[in-house]
């Protein structure tokens, strides 16, 4: 019975790993993967010298770190707000609406974003124009694109991210709140001195996990939102792998880039795991 999944994993997960040798070869289609010439680290030397390489690494780190600042904090705020709501039906309706964007594909989100934010016909710009402002190229100019990208990320994940925090908050011993009330603590004191410290471990664990992932990048999210006018920030590692490898046919260089990303990624995950364990958390592995 175990044979089915093992065979599956070997063929579709482990077999591609052997394809990583491409990163150390000068791949020629005529010679095949195994017939191509070994070139050692030559491909990597070439890769590191590329202008786009530096840009892709910078963008991957930049987008993910900014995401961490905004998309990571918003769910905490929302969860604390939701926790203050006493009317359960109000809370329910809000949660349902807030979770919704998480269920949509990036294509649909991208399409909606263009419908809303495009310069000439987007409704947001129509409103701005109606109020006498100037139209803003939200998605067609590098820096604006960056902000839109981040905002859309927050929009997509803010509700969904609250689930874990809400669960953690619901595990707080009610007596803590009672004691705080007896001591004369107001609402904000209770949020600040009871709720937040109680979910601190959850926050720290999730933060460390996310830090371990700053070298990864969502191809789908960037690809659905990018356009020809905004290449400055959209060139990230996965996008470059796609452009070089599948579109451009330079399999060796694209594989090397992918391998570079996974190796750094693994190192970051291991480090994150170490830190988590040092702080007395469960760790990830």
């Amino acid at each position: 019975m175990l044979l089915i999944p093992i065979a599956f994993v070997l063929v579709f997960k482990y077999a591609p790993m052997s394809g990583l040798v491409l990163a150390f070869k000068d791949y020629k289609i005529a010679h095949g993967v195994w017939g191509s010439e070994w070139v050692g680290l030559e491909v990597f030397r070439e890769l590191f010298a590329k202008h786009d390489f530096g840009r892709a690494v910078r963008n991957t780190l930049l987008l993910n770190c900014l995401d961490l600042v905004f998309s990571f904090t918003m769910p905490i705020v929302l969860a604390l707000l939701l926790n203050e709501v006493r009317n359960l039906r109000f809370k329910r309706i809000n949660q349902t609406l807030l979770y919704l964007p998480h269920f949509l594909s990036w294509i649909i989100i991208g399409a909606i974003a263009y419908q809303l934010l495009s310069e000439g016909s987007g409704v947001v710009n129509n409103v701005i124009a109606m109020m006498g402002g100037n139209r803003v190229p939200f998605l067609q100019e590098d820096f604006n694109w960056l902000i839109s990208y981040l905002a859309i990320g927050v929009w997509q994940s803010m509700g969904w991210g609250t689930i874990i925090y809400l669960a953690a908050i619901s595990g707080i011993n009610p007596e803590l709140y009672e004691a705080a009330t007896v001591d004369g603590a107001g609402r904000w004191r209770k949020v600040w001195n009871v709720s937040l410290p109680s979910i601190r471990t959850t926050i720290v664990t999730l933060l460390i996990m996310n830090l371990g992932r700053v070298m990864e990048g969502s191809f789908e999210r960037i690809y659905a939102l990018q356009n020809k006018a905004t290449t400055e920030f959209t060139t990230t590692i996965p996008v470059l792998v796609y452009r070089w490898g599948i579109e451009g046919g330079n399999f060796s260089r694209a594989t090397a880039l992918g391998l570079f990303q996974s190796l750094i990624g693994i190192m970051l995950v291991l480090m994150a795991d170490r830190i988590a364990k040092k702080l007395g958390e469960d760790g990830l592995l």
Partner: protein
Amino acid sequence: MKSSGNVITMHRKRRFDTWDVLIHLSLIIASLVCLLPFLHVAAKSLSSDAFVIANKVFLLPRGFTFEAYGKIFADASILRSLYVSVIVTVVFTLLGMIITICAAYPLSRKQLKGRTALTMIFMITLYFSGGIIPEYMLMNQLGMLDTLWALILPQAFSAFNFLIMKTAISSSIPVSLEESARIDGAGHFRILWSIVLPLSKPIIATLSLFYAVGRWNAYQDALFYIKQAVELRPLQLKLYYLVIQASESFQLEATQVQLSNPEVLKASCVVFATLPILCIYPFIQKYFVQGVLLGAVKE
């Protein structure tokens, strides 16, 4: 959530104060931000071209018409990609669940030898993979490019879902139940079929939905693997070419390009592609929440 909420309510029976108003207000704003984009696109899709070109459509349709939807249903290629998406999602989900159960059930039992090592084999794939290009080359070698198998097979095993399934089985099914079944003469498959599966129904539902919604929404692999075979494009990829790249025109439009405004058609395509998810969303939401919490236990 409930218990702490009630206790708090009991202990501060104050009336709505300013902070309450602010909290509710900010939540309402956040929810509206999630809802209004859909309303706008839906309104646009039901409006007539003239109002949309004049930028006069906000949250309600102007010059109400179903014309754009008529065009979608007349476009064979869109319906075809919907069909492809449905087929791929169904086969993928079934296969994914079979593989997940086949891996999770034996490995959840403590008497299996070499359990840790085998689990490791599966778990490594969560953190390390060959990457985009080697996977692409594999699909190429297997001759699966431009076939639906490329969308079904590679992702069918998910280490994450496997982990959730394994945890769920080992925590929800007592060993004693299995042992007594064995004493009664039941074999492995009989135990799986009559005891484990019926008891794991909730988790099976959750994971099936993870697989299905994930498959339905993904387009990256389709973008990579389905290049020549235009008729095999799943809905999301079709939407990508149609709406975002706008490199592909609507089949019907060829005859009436000047007359119609693609904005309305684009909007109706978005609604068309969103509707399946919106329809099932209210019912699947709770399963997803459960799944997230189960996954978080390990994390």
